[in-house]
């Protein structure tokens, strides 16, 4: 393993600084407002900060580990997300082999194709081959009840949990002149912008939020929180242009795209949760729900970010 790039070290050090600050604030708030663990907001905040530490450590290790680390981490995230998603579907006995194929064939093959950087196949493998073959496997069992719904559920699960998620490690395969050896920073940029946007929308919403933006889907989201969070996260993205191959203006534009897709992706995933009658996708991380609850915004922005950068900056 080679030494991590100095820019990556700088990014990770910056994030650690933010986390130490957050933990300190969380500790002080707990001492002042919730000494007997009774203040739900403070307790939830501290749960979140603790979960942040776990995620940042994992993500940092993966980025330092380069292609192997990132591919393994997101491969596992895909697996855990798919496990949560399929849990909420109405699949039946007859879907058993199609589901087994999704978990144990489609998912590993997709990440293997990412690993060997075969763009021509990994960008169509799921939407063409998996989407056509899996209904065939399901149909072979002869159970036609809710057939269309069942195959659509499994296909959407694969689309979100595997196909879209796998575009995060795919960023490492882009070949950008003058940016060699720094591609992991594109992943850091994407993840930081998405997460900062989540946090800033929450903060703006708490400060000045009045008008609900989607009362049925996500009652806590407000127009003020969305606009304030999106604009300030775009500004943060522009300010992070030093770690990207983009100019500040370009970085700001891409950050805005990431933020918008992340926001609406979150709404889509909320709609699915409402439909299924659950509050969280899973219970893996205290204060954060399941894997999909953390991944939803990244998942929607990753493929579009990947293709914009590939079209605009990459040689392959």
């Amino acid at each position, binding site marked *: 393993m080679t030494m991590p790039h100095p820019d990556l070290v700088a990014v990770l050090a910056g994030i650690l600084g933010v986390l130490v600050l957050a933990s300190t604030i969380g500790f002080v708030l707990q001492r002042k407002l919730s000494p007997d663990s009774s203040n739900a907001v403070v307790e939830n905040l501290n749960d979140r900060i603790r979960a942040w530490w776990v995620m940042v450590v994992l993500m940092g290790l993966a980025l330092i580990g380069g292609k192997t680390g990132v591919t393994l981490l997101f491969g596992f995230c895909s697996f855990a997300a798919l496990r949560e998603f399929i*849990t909420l579907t109405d699949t039946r006995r007859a879907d*058993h082999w199609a589901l087994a194929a999704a978990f144990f064939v489609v998912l590993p093959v997709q990440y293997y194709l990412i690993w060997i950087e075969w763009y021509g196949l990994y960008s169509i493998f799921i939407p063409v081959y998996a989407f056509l073959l899996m209904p065939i496997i399901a149909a072979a069992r002869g159970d036609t009840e809710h057939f269309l719904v069942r195959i659509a559920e499994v296909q959407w699960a694969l689309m979100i949990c595997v196909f879209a998620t796998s575009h995060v490690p795919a960023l490492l395969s882009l070949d950008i002149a003058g940016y060699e050896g720094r591609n992991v920073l594109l992943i850091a940029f994407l993840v930081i912008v998405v997460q900062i946007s989540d946090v800033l929308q929450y903060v703006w919403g708490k400060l000045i939020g009045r008008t609900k933006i989607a009362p049925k889907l996500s009652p806590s989201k407000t127009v003020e929180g969305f606009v304030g969070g999106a604009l300030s996260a775009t500004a943060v993205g522009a300010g992070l242009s030093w770690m990207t191959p983009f100019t500040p203006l370009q970085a700001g534009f891409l950050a805005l795209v990431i933020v918008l897709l992340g926001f609406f992706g979150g709404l889509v995933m909320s709609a699915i949760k409402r439909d299924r009658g659950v509050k969280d996708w*899973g219970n893996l991380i205290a204060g954060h729900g399941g894997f999909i609850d953390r991944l939803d915004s990244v998942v929607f922005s990753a493929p579009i970010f990947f293709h914009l950068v590939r079209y605009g900056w990459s040689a392959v």
Partner: protein
Amino acid sequence: MRGAGASLAGALILFFARFITAVRGRWAGAAPSDEQRIYFANHASHGDFVLIWTVLPRRLRFTTRPVAGSDYWLKSGLRRFIGRDVFNAVLIDRDRESRTSDPVAQMTEALDAGSSLIVFPEGTRNTTDARLLPFKSGLFHLAQARPNVALVPAWIDNLNRVMPKGEFVPIPLICTVTFGAPLRLSEGETKQDFLARTEAALLALSPKATAS
């Protein structure tokens, strides 16, 4: 040597169970405790007691023995190793005609030795669409024999979808084990009343019961 092999196999089985099911224990009606207990659960798969075992705190695993059918668990060397050596199961003969020892006597013997038990009062795996099969009378006779031991209902959710009967590749799905409030046989309670009460207590823990 056998002991080390058994604990290694136990650790592997736990890891595999977590990988496939990400199983969580929900202690809704009772906290995990060192007191002696009889956990009674719904039965849909041979992996049921593995999930209960996985969500128990580590120190309780060594004193909690599943009760399982010897016809299945003595069939091959591997099953015998997993059933006897890894999980230290109380193996009972479910065939009334051929059996030489009384299952209830075997279970009370294990209780008297200080163990807690995991039992499946339906008596067999439920492969029907009904959420629970009628309980066999074994639970009542056990409660009668040792009325002081608390009976804790444990609802295992989703494992039937992970591995339906007849399939051999498990589908990764999130499973939960929900523990309810401890029950005891009331004085003068009839067999029918007791079995109906325990069945209802277990069914009440199923997520479908709370959703609808």
